[in-house]
């Protein structure tokens, strides 16, 4: 069979296109879709509701203090936390409904709403701000994500995701996430300023399988500009998909 020159050119073009497509397919296979990874993280970590007890250890320059609490969480819009110890914080309650936050203090028997710029204050002197706790928007809604590589972290192979803000009103212009390739659990997160300076780092560890999902039980938050060992948040007990009475997520429950 004779192949003339124009036909030859067409075949060459097709081959080039096929090679290009196949290499693209290989590339996308090698570096999976970042949004897909974020969705899988959401699926793994989110639940209809959960009840958990936790301890938050704030490492200061001279001493450390630990605050324990019990939290009830429904979806990502409603949460109720009651502090159990130390005696100074015992009985303090915090209620978050959508984008509103109230705190009840037993010593004054008053409920105050934390709003506006008070949200930028630290929670109980930790490296976390109320705003960090309040931000319940999904990362896929606020950031453009790309997979920038793969790395071994804490003995696990991870995807490195680089997130760049696509809306104006986010606290951090860029984020970097290290996500366990098998379990789809973030193991490390770094938060950056607009200038690119590293501001905060969270390291997630003690990943255990609970009710079929992988869950990090310890998170260490660290303000990278500040000296100290950061704030360690440890989940001591967690139950998913429990029956949580509706009254828990009302302001009245703060004074109960």
């Amino acid at each position, binding site marked *: 069979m004779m192949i003339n020159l124009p036909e030859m050119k067409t075949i060459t073009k097709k081959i080039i296109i096929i090679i290009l497509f196949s290499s693209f397919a290989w590339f996308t296979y090698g570096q999976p879709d970042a949004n897909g990874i974020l969705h899988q993280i959401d699926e793994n970590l989110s639940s209809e509701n959960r009840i958990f007890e936790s301890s938050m250890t704030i490492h200061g320059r001279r001493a450390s203090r630990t605050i324990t609490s019990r939290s009830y969480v429904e979806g990502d819009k409603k949460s109720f936390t009651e502090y159990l110890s130390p005696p100074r914080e015992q009985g303090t309650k915090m209620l978050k409904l959508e984008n509103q936050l109230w705190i009840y203090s037993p010593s004054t028997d008053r409920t105050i709403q934390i709003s506006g710029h008070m949200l930028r204050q630290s929670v109980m002197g930790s490296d976390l701000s109320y705003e960090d706790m309040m931000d319940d928007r999904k990362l896929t809604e606020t950031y453009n994500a790309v997979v920038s590589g793969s790395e071994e972290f804490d003995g696990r192979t991870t995807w490195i995701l680089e997130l760049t803000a696509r809306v104006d*009103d986010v606290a*951090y212009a860029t984020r970097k996430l290290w996500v366990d390739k098998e379990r789809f659990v973030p193991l490390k997160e770094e938060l950056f300023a607009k200038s690119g300076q590293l501001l905060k780092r969270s390291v997630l560890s003690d990943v255990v399988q609970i009710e079929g999902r992988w869950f990090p039980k310890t998170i260490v938050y660290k303000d990278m*500009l*500040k000296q100290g060992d950061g704030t360690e948040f440890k989940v001591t007990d967690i139950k998913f998909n429990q029956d949580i009475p509706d009254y828990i997520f009302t302001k009245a429950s703060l004074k109960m």
Partner: protein
Amino acid sequence: MKTAFKLAYRNLIGAGLRTWLNVIVLSFSFVVIIWLKGILMGWDYQAKSDMTNWEIGGGQYWHESYDPYDPFTLAESHSIIPQQFSDEIEQGDMVPVLMVQGTIYPQGRMQSITIKGIDPDQDLFLLPTHQLDTATDAVPAIIGAAMAESLQLDRSDHVTLRWRDARGTFDATDIVITDIFSSNVPSVEAAQVYIPLAILREMTMMQGEATLLTFRDPEAERPAVQGWVHKPKEVLTASVDRMIKTKTAGQSVFYTILLLLAMLAIFDTQVLSIFRRQKEIGTYIALGYTRREVVGLFTVEGAMHSIFAAVVGALYGLPFLAWQAEVGWTIPMDAGDFGMAMAQTLYPVYSAGLVISTVLIVVVITTVVSYWPSRKIAKMNPTEALRGRIQ
């Protein structure tokens, strides 16, 4: 009356040491009261002139959301500078300042501060803003001495500054301390970092905006501007007035104790005089003096202590007060702890009104105290008095 003064003078001089002791105690009251009042007047003058030079100029316009006692208002307290002020700003007679909340991390410690953007070429304030016009590898910044001391920062030190832009996104950069200034106004030093206005506007995406507009001329007619609140100089210095008023009330306790001691001495002297000089009183009446005249004589005698005290006080007080006005009085504690515009060394300021009013008050009080025991004379029986019988 002339005779009364002559007699009073002779009697006082004749009483010798007793008179001079009274006079010295009273003169001490004179000098101390004038000095203390002078210190307060000096503080008032210094505080207001320091505030003018460092903080408030001839008055200010505040952004309507700005509340100096609530740092949370800073995030909303900024807007475009009204067009009508363009000329005044151009001529250097108005200085815009943009204020933003931030955090600095000296030696890894976290410190909330206010970032103030100011024109490096301004000359309305004594702030060394020309030091902001420096080419450096980091953002040039000036800070107050009190803050430099508490954060252990020095010239040429680099420190990380973190802030949020107008949309709430974090940003961070290094600043370099190009100068450290010392003022007597804690509110311009405490937890504040001054950087060039243009750089802060760029950092926060607040182009053409300001939080405060300080003008030079306090006398000029100031129109109401929408979105901005006019704060005349008297309003901005009202805190000094209130503090001086409180301090004056506090000091009056001290004056009262001083005067009480002096008056007690004079009262005792008067009682003793009347008791010991009954024959003399009887003689006066026998000579034709009315009781009122005798009471007047003794009152003048007592009151004359204050005149002597004024003269004696002037002898040593004038050099002392003049010397104090020259060298001032250094407060034996850190003046910055007061949280007000207060110099470490206060220079007393004396006015004619202050001296005259103090002399008048002391003379009147001494006269009243002298008259009080003298009233007894009016009830005396002259014949018994002549015999020197105790009544």
